[in-house]
């Protein structure tokens, strides 16, 4: 019986026809982080539809859920490259998952546009020529906020870090940026992932009397940390900077908690880039919410891939990669963006956002003000800062 079911499904899923271009997306489509993944999937699909056809061929789009599990991501990448015969994989949040997919890209010799994983290993010791990194990375998030914050917010910083790879990397980069601007790191707490009660760490922070509290965490941890910070009066005493903060978290916990907090971001839907507002409005109409920068990055990655196919005149992976390396482009996400050939990182101007107070929110999900920016050379650092030795072809 199992055999029959399997056979039916195999016949049902046709291999990719030769006259289409197939874009695959792997992301987190279930669980609490699905808000990120759904945004990416919707945007990439929008890009495919908006692009229409490329080189006279139809564009197909498939998605796979990795449920934020690196092992699953690895399998899905294999499935997409092998069985679905996709020409490219985009997105893939979760650094461990992205590293696995990058490896599969090298093994299958097909491109991977990584947009939502932060690890600088992708442009460092695990780099390969089939991977193009877009959007942010851990260095950029921390350095942008650190450089700008040390100048504008204060010199004494206290960090609360989630105890895993992402947190550690952010901490390292933050403290380096802080030191560059003459700031002092007055203390740090390592907190286990998914901690519910942040009060002991907030107490630690209070004791250190910082100018700025930095929360190097995401999701539930950020919300729990902020709830404690508000209750124990820390929010009144200092400024607060986040590593990452998206609209869904603000919706999920209420904007009062986050008001006046800062975060670095590569993009915001109100940014002054060509097509950004149109994209955000179309997204709002279709999905009743505003896009976060992960979603926008997926759109841009898909679009730039298809543009590169057009420029190269073929879907042949090596030619498309060559068309992307060293390329400068202007779209609604990066204006301009430049894909460095040394490490395949796409660099662009980075912004500083501040969460609005509830009374200032004029439109739906209009949560942030853009209060500053940092030029790409400073935000992303010099090319090949992480020692990438390109392999692949």
């Amino acid at each position, binding site marked *: 019986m*199992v055999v029959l079911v399997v056979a039916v499904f195999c016949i049902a*899923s046709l291999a990719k026809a030769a006259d289409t271009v197939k874009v695959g997306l792997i992301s987190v489509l*279930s669980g609490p982080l699905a808000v990120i993944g759904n945004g990416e999937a919707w945007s990439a699909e929008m890009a495919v539809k908006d692009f229409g056809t490329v080189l006279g061929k139809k564009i197909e789009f498939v998605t796979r859920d990795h449920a934020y*599990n690196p092992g699953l991501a690895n*399998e899905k990448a294999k499935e997409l490259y*092998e*069985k679905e015969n996709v020409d490219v994989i985009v997105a893939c949040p979760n650094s461990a998952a992205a590293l696995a997919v990058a490896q599969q890209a090298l093994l299958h010799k097909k491109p991977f546009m990584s947009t939502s994983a932060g690890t600088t*290993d992708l442009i460092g010791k695990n780099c390969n020529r089939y991977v193009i990194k877009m959007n942010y990375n851990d260095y950029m998030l921390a350095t942008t906020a650190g450089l700008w914050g040390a100048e504008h917010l204060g010199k004494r910083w206290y960090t609360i870090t989630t105890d895993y*790879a992402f947190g550690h990397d952010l901490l390292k980069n933050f403290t380096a940026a802080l030191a560059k601007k003459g700031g002092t790191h007055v203390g740090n707490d390592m907190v286990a992932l998914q901690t519910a009660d942040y009060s002991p760490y907030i107490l630690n922070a209070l004791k250190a009397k910082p100018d700025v509290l930095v929360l190097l965490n995401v999701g539930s941890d950020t919300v729990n940390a902020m709830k404690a910070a508000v209750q124990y009066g820390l929010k009144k005493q200092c400024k607060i900077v986040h590593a990452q903060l998206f609209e869904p978290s603000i919706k999920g916990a209420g904007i009062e908690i986050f008001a006046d907090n800062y975060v670095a971001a590569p993009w915001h839907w109100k940014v002054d880039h060509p097509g950004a507002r149109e994209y955000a409005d179309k997204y709002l109409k279709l999905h009743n919410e505003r896009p976060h920068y992960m979603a926008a990055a997926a759109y841009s990655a898909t679009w730039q891939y298809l543009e590169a196919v057009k420029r190269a005149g073929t879907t042949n992976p090596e030619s498309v990669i060559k068309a992307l390396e060293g390329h400068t482009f202007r779209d609604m996400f990066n204006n301009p963006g430049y894909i460095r050939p040394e490490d395949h990182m796409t660099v662009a101007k980075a912004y500083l956002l501040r969460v609005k107070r509830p009374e200032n929110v004029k439109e739906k999900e209009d949560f942030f003000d853009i209060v500053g920016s940092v030029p790409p050379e400073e935000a992303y650092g010099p090319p090949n800062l992480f020692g990438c030795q390109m392999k692949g072809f």
Partner: protein
Amino acid sequence: MKIDDKRSFWILPLAALFFLVLPFITPYKALASQMLIFGIFAIGYDILFGYTGLLSFGHAAYFGLGAYGAGLSLVHLSVPTLPALLIGVIISVLFALGIGYLSIRRRGIYFAMVTMAFAQMIYFIVFKWRSLTGGSDGLQGVPRPNVGPINLSSELTLYYFILFFFMISVFLGIRIIHSPFGKAIECLRENEDRARSVGFNPTRFKLMSFVISASFAGLAGGLYALLQNFVPLHALNLDTSGDIVLITLVGGKGTLYGPILAAMVILFLKDLLTSYINIWPLFLGLFFVISVMTFRRGIFKELKEKLLKF
């Protein structure tokens, strides 16, 4: 599982044929390999849970240790494939000896909780030791060195390589169950006091069973590292422990073939569902509940009863 009538005579060749063509039936070949790996894991777990009656809620530890053991040897020590797998098994066994010795003394739910506690501790250590294990990123870049003339880089070849180990595991599993040891642990499961009065040392047998099941898990883990070319931290997670319990229970504990079949079906379903439906945890939960409520003896035991009635 003896060959006792003409109908069962056909099981063996049919099964052999099935496994030979499996990679061509599944959506992608790596899935078939995964099914075999969890089948091996399930055999070992059934020996412990089904035949000895010990519910371990931390068996992911041995799976994970096998994976990291093999993976680390491949990455840092550059050993060939077969010794790496052996190292994985040895590491699992060593930990199982220690943890088993401490846990065996308790029964029932306390045993389950102690095993869980130890599994969490191992998870934590592996997680923190980022310089060695890669921490939450997992162990990246696990190679697949050739085994003699056999090149394992093709998924298909790797499948048959894993199939070889699968067949050995099945064979070993059956031999263990039908051996005097196998009878002894079943006796233990039914009535420990009586077993003791007949002269069996329960502690020694329980520990042996624990270690044996860990060795299967360790082998499965090592093969998993080869398959994925990396070791995800998730292999040590409580979820993975829960998965193997579910698989064994749904398949029918104490049957060996039940859990193997369940492993394959559940893995296949999981893959299928995640590709098409985004609310699959709901279905998994529902499936779990239904299985526990109705298929108390396990789906395959129930099916077998019905089939034999023909």
